[in-house]
């Protein structure tokens, strides 16, 4: 288990990154989340980065990977709480976070996950097989 707790709220996994992560810890979190999505049958993953004062290419890649893996496992990932200075820097760095959905805060993130999951169900429900 990583030092970053993963909380399960109904069928959503919530992670709030409160520390300056070294690279191994970021990879550990990625592995933990992938395992937990399957074990907890999660439909959504919300990652709160409001405490992070930078997102560099490594953390960006971690967020991209988590989004991609959760998609394959039939869950949606939403990153919430990005600080404005971080957003400005990410764009200049050239990191586009393709495939990562974002919301301003946890509240809006929950609404987005609900909408995305409901949207899928409306379009035929949880994919079979």
């Amino acid at each position, binding site marked *: 288990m990583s030092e970053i707790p993963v909380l399960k709220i109904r069928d959503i996994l919530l992670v709030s990154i409160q520390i*300056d992560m070294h*690279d191994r810890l970021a990879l550990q979190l990625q592995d933990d989340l992938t395992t937990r999505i399957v074990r907890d049958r999660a439909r959504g993953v919300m990652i709160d980065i409001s405490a992070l004062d930078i997102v560099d290419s490594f953390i960006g890649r971690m967020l991209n990977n988590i989004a991609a893996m959760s998609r394959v496992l039939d869950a949606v990932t939403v990153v919430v709480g990005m600080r404005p200075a971080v957003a400005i820097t990410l764009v200049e760095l050239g*990191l586009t976070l393709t495939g990562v959905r974002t919301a301003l805060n946890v509240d809006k993130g929950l609404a987005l996950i609900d909408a995305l999951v409901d949207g899928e169900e409306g379009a035929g429900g949880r994919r079979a097989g």
Partner: protein
Amino acid sequence: MVVEQDDTMPVRGSDDVVRVRQAVRARAIAAGFSLVDQTKIITAASEIARNTVDYGGGGSVRMEVLRDGRRSGVRLTFTDHGPGIPDLALAQTDGFTSGHGLGLGLTGARRLSNEFDIVSTPGAGTIVTLARWK
């Protein structure tokens, strides 16, 4: 130009990358940087520190807080004695990577800096210097 602070710290493992980020933040604050400027130089430092560890086999960073008349800045010099970069032009192309990254390290750090210089000698090592001014 006056050098107000001048320290060197090791950059050997991923824990050091975190320490470099924290040390650079302290210097950016000492130089009076805005939050956005702090974020930019810390992010650039993080990219280059990781390259020093992953590709250079570890090294060190010299951190200077500079004052030049009314402007102040932070200059970082990362030195390693690793294999060097055989093709600097290629290494500074967006998306090029020799490792597992996104290939944004060098190009991204350059965009986040006001001054950026890289000198690499195959077999001898790499020196990356970057500076940002307030």
